[in-house]
């Protein structure tokens, strides 16, 4: 069952303004601080903040700057009195925040590393050899980066009105979304490898759970109305799609065990989930609706076959949908650690997985 890879979401980077570092100091002309100043200048240059720039190069720059920044001591006395870092909200660029905090600067850089990783992952050709594995790795790194950025911001005390994108709720939501997309890569790999239906069902169910967790955060404050409508629609449709995929493959397993009654109930439940989602969701990509429709057709075919067999051969009772137990799930992905994210190898632009 080869199908076109479904679209993935990527996170835009936070924009920043230029910052003057380390003027009027006796070490102004040292090679190290010259590198640091130049890296920061490149980071804030308008041309390099354009979305058309290569994501891998962008990430390499971010990693280099972070390494240089980490080498500098955290002593505030080492910095100018008028030190200030300005970063814009990734999803609402008109919102910005300025802080004289090295911690804030590092958190923003790590957030952008996650955003760059998500862009790299979404752009990978998953149909190519090794593509789905590379995308899976990048999504896991992105998940780890967003979580790390959120943890760094936990200690920051100030009004959080304009830091929604790095707040605890957004960090958790973005982590869940990236894990969902990594798990989706595992599902694609499972299908391509001919994994058993029961195992495929577990992988799909976990992807659905991750998407559902992301969606649950998006519909309540403070994330409500902060993201594009198409984002919310995309995530909701993906959740329904993977719940249906889990039911579909679980039903195939039931058919092989001639448990036709539950097979019929599972297929009907899955089909209803897709139909309801397609009605309720507006603004998701067309290819996602196409994928949902194709799955619906496959499930309807299996349902018709199961109904015919049940009527003529098995004559089994079909359980009600509310009596069905939740499907089992298996997570195959995790958020990468900060050391994995800041690996020197990726700084040179290599996409090591």
């Amino acid at each position, binding site marked *: 069952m080869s199908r076109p890879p479904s679209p993935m979401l990527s996170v835009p980077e936070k924009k920043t303004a230029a910052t003057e570092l380390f003027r009027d100091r006796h070490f102004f002309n040292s090679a190290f601080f010259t590198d640091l100043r130049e890296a920061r200048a490149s980071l804030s240059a308008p041309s390099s903040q354009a979305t058309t720039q290569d994501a891998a190069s962008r990430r390499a720059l971010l990693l280099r700057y972070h390494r240089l920044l980490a080498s500098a001591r955290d002593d505030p006395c080492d910095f100018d009195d008028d030190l200030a870092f300005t970063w814009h909200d990734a999803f609402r660029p008109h919102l910005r925040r300025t802080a004289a905090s090295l911690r804030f600067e590092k958190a923003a850089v790590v957030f952008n590393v996650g955003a760059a990783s998500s862009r790299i992952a979404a752009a990978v050709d998953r149909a190519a050899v090794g593509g789905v*594995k590379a995308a899976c*790795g990048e999504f896991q790194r992105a998940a780890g980066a967003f979580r790390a950025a959120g943890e760094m911001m936990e200690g920051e005390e100030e009004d959080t009105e304009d830091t929604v994108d790095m707040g605890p709720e957004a960090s958790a939501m973005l982590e869940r979304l990236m894990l969902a997309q990594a798990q989706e890569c595992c599902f694609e*790999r*499972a299908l391509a*490898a001919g994994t058993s239906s029961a*195992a495929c069902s*577990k992988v799909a169910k976990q992807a659905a759970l991750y998407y559902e967790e992301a969606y649950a955060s998006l519909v309540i404050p403070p994330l409500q109305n902060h993201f594009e409508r198409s984002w919310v629609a995309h995530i909701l449709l993906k959740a329904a799609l993977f719940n249906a995929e889990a039911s579909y493959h679980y039903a195939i397993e039931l058919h092989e065990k001639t448990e036709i009654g539950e097979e019929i109930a599972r297929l009907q439940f899955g089909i209803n989930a897709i139909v309801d989602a397609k009605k309720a969701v507006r603004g998701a990509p067309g290819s996602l609706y196409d994928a949902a429709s194709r799955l619906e057709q496959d499930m309807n075919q299996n349902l018709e076959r199961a109904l015919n067999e049940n009527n*003529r*051969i098995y004559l089994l009772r079909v359980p009600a949908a509310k009596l069905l137990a939740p499907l089992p799930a298996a997570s*195959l992905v995790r958020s990468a650690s900060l050391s994995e994210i800041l690996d020197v190898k990726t700084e040179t632009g290599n996409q090591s997985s």
Partner: protein
Amino acid sequence: MLEKKEKVLEKKAAAELERAKEFSKAKNKRAAIQSLKRKKLYEQQIEQLGNFQLRIHDQMIMLEAAKATTETVDALRTGAAAMKAMQKATNIDDVDKTMDEINEQTENMKQIQDALSAPLGASADFDEDELEAELEELEGAELESQLLEPVAAPPVHPVQVPGTRIPTRPAPQKASAEEDELAALQAEMAL
């Protein structure tokens, strides 16, 4: 509707009968006869309506019987189709093959049980008669030692008999193939 009309006619007939009685009391014989005639007409109409209802009822009964017959035939046809499908699924060659497999499995099980029942290892080499004779000697020696004076008892050398325990084979723990698949997939996709 017919029943309603019947009720109306019955009411009219009763009314005419009352009028006939009154006319009879008043000695108006001709008027009384006229009323009785009208009553007769109403009763004829009532009878006709009754026939109509009876005919319709008859048809209803026939319709219900026909429906029952049709449903019975449909059920029989469905049953026949199901039996045909089952018959198709149950091929005589498959049955023969299955019976052969069952017999083969039974033979295998018998052989396994026979093999397990047979003595294994060193104990297989022992002669039962020799063992019994040796046991009698042991019992005799024990009896003698009890009868003799403790001081004069000669030392007894016990005979070493190796254990006859059949080695137990551990039941093979088949790991879940599904969990193996998931673990392999996770390792493949890991960072």
